[in-house]
Each structure stands twice: as C-alpha cells, then as structure tokens.
C-alpha cells in the first residue's frame, strides 16, 4: 500500500511513457533497421548494409526533392521572418485596431494546409485565376502559369506556405517585443537614439532567442511539408515539385519500396535532429540559467 502510494506518480505516467518509447522511439529504430535491409513490399529482416542510402542518393527524383526542399526552406524562412518582423514592429507602434489587424494576419494559421492549398490552387489557376484578372484589366499578354510549369511550381508552394505561416512569426515576435522593458527604450530615447536605431541596435538583438525559435520552427515545418504540396501541385508537373516527405510516402505506399522509403525517412529525421538538438540544448541551458 505504501509502495503504491509512493510510486503513484510513476504509475500514472508509465502508460504514456510506454506509448512514447514504443510508438515514437521504437518505431524510429524499426524504420532505421528496415533502411538497412532489402525490404520491398514486406519487411525483410535480413541485414543488407547501407546500400539503400547509396540507391537513394543516386536517384534523380530524390535529388529533385532535396533541391526543392532547399529552395522552399530558404525562401519560406526568409520571407516569413521578414514579414513577421516588419508586421510585429509596425503593430507595436500603439496602433488603433491592433486586435483586428492581428486577427486578420493570423487566421490562415487556423486553416489546414489542404484548405490553404485548395484556395491557392484556384487563385493561381492558369486560365481562370489571377492571370485572367490581369488580362481583364488590360494586361493582354499577362501570363502566370507557375502552377503547371516545371521548375516554377515549387514557388507557388512558397507563396501559399508564407501566406499560411507568416502571421505566426508575427505573433511570436510581437510577444517578444512586448516583453522588452519600456525603461530601456525610454533611456535610449533620452540619449537621443532614433526609432530605427532603437530597433536595429537595441531591441532586435534582444530578440535573439525568439529569432532562434522562429528559425527552428520554420525549418522543421518546411522539412515536414507534405499536405501543402499534395493539395497544391501533388508534386507536379511530373515530379518537379516533389519534396522528401512526398517522396517517402510515394515509395512507401505506392511503389512498395519500404527499404528505400525508410532510408529517405531516416534522412529527414536526421536533418530535423541536427537542427532541433542544439536548439533544445541551448533552450534548456537558458532555462537552467534563469533558476
């Protein structure tokens, strides 16, 4: 009875912990092992070595996925952070209707990537969408067919992705700006610093932790991008807007190449880990420092 009482907290957390160990970490290990086998449609547990990784990196389609991921991540990151910071700073100027504007900037975050993709697919429609609008107002030779142009369709995913996520970056920067001590700003003003230099020299450098969080969140979101690609371009035209997540599900569930699919999943996992682990380490150190 006393044993039960003393161990109750551990007993309460153990089912969740067991689920976590089995379904998250155990499953990742399983996927890792399968990536070292010849498995096709069914798992084949005979060890084969790292040949699947050589196969993966010799595939054109994987190279397209990786380079698309690179394009998408860098543009998504730069645009979201740029828009987020600008909007947060402007909203921080004691604006009337701030609440209303914030609601508008952030509502896309409540929509799914499938809804987002469906809406933008219609707006970017090459015959009836935005192209027709520009032709109607007099630009007769206006064409905008990125959605169906290989090499350009990846940028339509950037447009929709930035629309969906940039408001979120605005929100976390605004929260950061609000936590800056007013005294510091007042003191700087007395010293004769202008608004621009107050922001660039004092406030933004103080936002470093927020900046770090934003980068990690955006990059890991970009690596996981799947829904938006499917809804907007389905990886097309052809496979020109493929991303690793799309590649993985294609080979896992449509082409019965689970060994190869596992190796691509592990590549994604390692990339996320390489970004997240240093971030978590520094975050936790910061928290310890506060105590």
């Amino acid at each position: 009875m006393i044993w039960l009482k003393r161990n109750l907290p551990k007993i309460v957390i153990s089912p969740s912990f067991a689920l976590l160990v089995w379904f998250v970490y155990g499953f990742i290990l399983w996927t890792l092992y399968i990536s070292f086998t010849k498995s096709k449609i069914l798992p084949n547990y005979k060890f084969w070595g790292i040949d699947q990784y050589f196969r993966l990196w010799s595939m054109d389609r994987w190279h397209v996925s990786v380079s698309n991921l690179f394009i998408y991540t860098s543009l998504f990151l730069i645009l979201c952070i740029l828009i987020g910071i600008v909007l947060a700073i402007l909203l921080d100027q004691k604006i009337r209707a701030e609440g209303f504007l914030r609601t508008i900037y952030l509502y896309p975050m409540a929509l799914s990537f499938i809804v987002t993709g469906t809406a933008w697919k219609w707006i970017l429609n090459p015959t009836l969408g935005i192209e027709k609008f520009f032709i109607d107002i007099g630009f007769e030779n206006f064409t905008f067919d990125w959605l169906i142009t290989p090499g350009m369709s990846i940028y339509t995913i950037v447009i929709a992705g930035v629309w969906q996520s940039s408001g979120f970056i605005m929100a976390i920067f605004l929260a950061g700006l609000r936590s800056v001590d007013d005294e510091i700003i007042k003191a700087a003003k007395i010293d004769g610093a202008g608004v621009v230099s107050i922001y660039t020299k004092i406030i933004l450098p103080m936002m470093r932790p927020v900046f770090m969080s934003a980068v990690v969140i955006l990059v890991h979101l970009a690596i996981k991008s799947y829904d938006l690609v499917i809804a907007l371009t389905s990886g097309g035209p052809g496979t020109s807007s493929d991303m690793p997540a799309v590649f993985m599900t294609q080979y896992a569930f449509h082409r019965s190449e689970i060994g190869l699919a596992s190796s691509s999943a592990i590549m994604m996992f390692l990339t996320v880990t390489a970004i997240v682990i240093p971030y978590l380490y520094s975050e936790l150190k910061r928290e310890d420092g506060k105590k």
Partner: protein
Amino acid sequence: MEKNNLKFEQLETASKKKKIIYRWILFLILGIFALYYITPLYVMIVTSLKSMEEIRTGNLFYLPKSINFDSWLEAWRGQLVNTTSGLKVDAGNVYLKNYFWNSVKMVVPAVAISTILGALNGYALTKWRFKYDNIIFLLFLFGTFIPYQAILLPMARTLGVLGLSNSITGLVVVHVIYGLCFTTLFCRNYYVSISDEIVRAARIDGAGFFKIFFKIMLPISLPILVVTVIWQFTQIWNDFLFGATFSFGEAAPIQVALNNMVLTSTSVKRYNVDMAAAIIAGIPTLIVYVLAGKYFIRGLTAGSVKG
C-alpha cells in the same frame, strides 16, 4: 524674441505633420498586408457563391450577381442527378457530409483522452519529482519535433495487426499517441510555473496524488486546458498525413475527403463547389480561432518557446 517663438511653432507643426505622414505610411503598409491575408478568403467566399457560368465569364474578384448557395449544398450532400427512381446522388460523387461527421467522431475522443493524459503527466512530472523525470520530459519534448515519416510504416503495420486500419478508432489511437507529446509539454510548462508550496502544504495535510490533482490543480488549470484542447482540436481536425495514410474510403476524415473532391477530375471542374467544400472543411477551426483567438495564440507561442 518673438521671431524665435514663431520659428519654434513652425518647427513644432512641421514635426507634427511629419508624424502624421509616418502614421499614414504605417497604416498603408499594414493595410496592404491585411489585403494579402484576407484576399484568399474573400476569393473563396465569392467563388463559392457564383455559378460556373459566372466564374468563366467574370474574374476572381467580381462579386457574385446573386447569392446562391447551391455549391454549398452540393459540397455538403452531393450533386443530385435525375434517375429513374427520382433525384439521387451519383455513386462516384464525393461530398463532405459523412466525412465531416467522421472527423467529429475522431476529434472528440482523441482531444479528450490526450488532454486528460497530458494534464496528469504534466502534474506528475512537475509536482512529484522522481528520478530521471527530466529525461522523461526531454523525450516527450523531442517527440513534438519528429517527422512522422519516420513512424508511418511501422504504425501502418501495427494498426493492421490490431485490426484498426481504415477505421476511425485507429485514427483516434494514432492522434492520442502522437498528441501526448504536445499535451504533456503544454501542461508541464504551465504546472512548472505554479508554486510547489501549495502541493507541499497539501501533502503535509495528508492529501494524496489524485486528491491534490482534482482538488487543487484542476481548478486552476482551466487556462492551460483550454489552450491544450484548442491546439489538439486544430491539429487533429486539420491533419491530412495520418488520415490519408491510415484510412481511405468510408472512414476518411474531412481533409482527405476535401483533397479527393478537388482531385477527382471525372467531369468538368466545378471550382465553386471546391471552394464551398474548402470553406466547410475550414469553418470549425476558424470559428474556434475567432471565438478563442487569445488561447489559440497562446498555444502557438507555448508550443514554440519550448522548454
């Protein structure tokens, strides 16, 4: 003397003018961005109210000539076709009604179970410290970042073995398991900021683990429970990856159905119906956002500034 005063006044009005101009530029930029964010929603709504004829002749931004909810009805319960036995929905026609309820049946239990477990975990991890509790927390924390591609294949096999593939129950299980990391994280971060003194005093008075949880912690947990429920609701309602991987056909959730609806190119594309369907799929989370925006944002930022 008088001259100097005049100069000063001039300077003052000049700086006031400058300030007003700055204000205008500020509002102009904010307004342009507001347009950028609101335009897609506007386009979705006006398109959903137009007929296909109007869509072909007009352009994206024109208001509909008359308000017409036919596309909404069609997106919700299918296109009625004349058959020998009266008006009926065509067999190949995808519409949202059943899938909407699938999502509801999936979201309610998944959100409830994962939130309750998350609250208990967060409480146990912060108020009843034990050996390795920090490592356990770290494992949950890292779990919020993993790309699900690394668990999809074994999960699909496991659901198959359990006889849960292609079922709503299976999706509930999946969402509870992978939602646990988030709910535990949220609640843990909230409870860690609550003073240990109350718990210590209650323990000295002889109160046990569950008594303290229900009598002391739960009553003050409302804000974080609201944040957690909203977060889980939004995540699970909007999920596509799990839905598309683990269920197909009849048991699919709404996002999968919406995507199928837009992709089926059997006959002529009906953009008005697509847009009505997209709005229907987005309305529940939009309503939650408008009603509880404060908590929604708090969840987002809590999930971002982790640890």
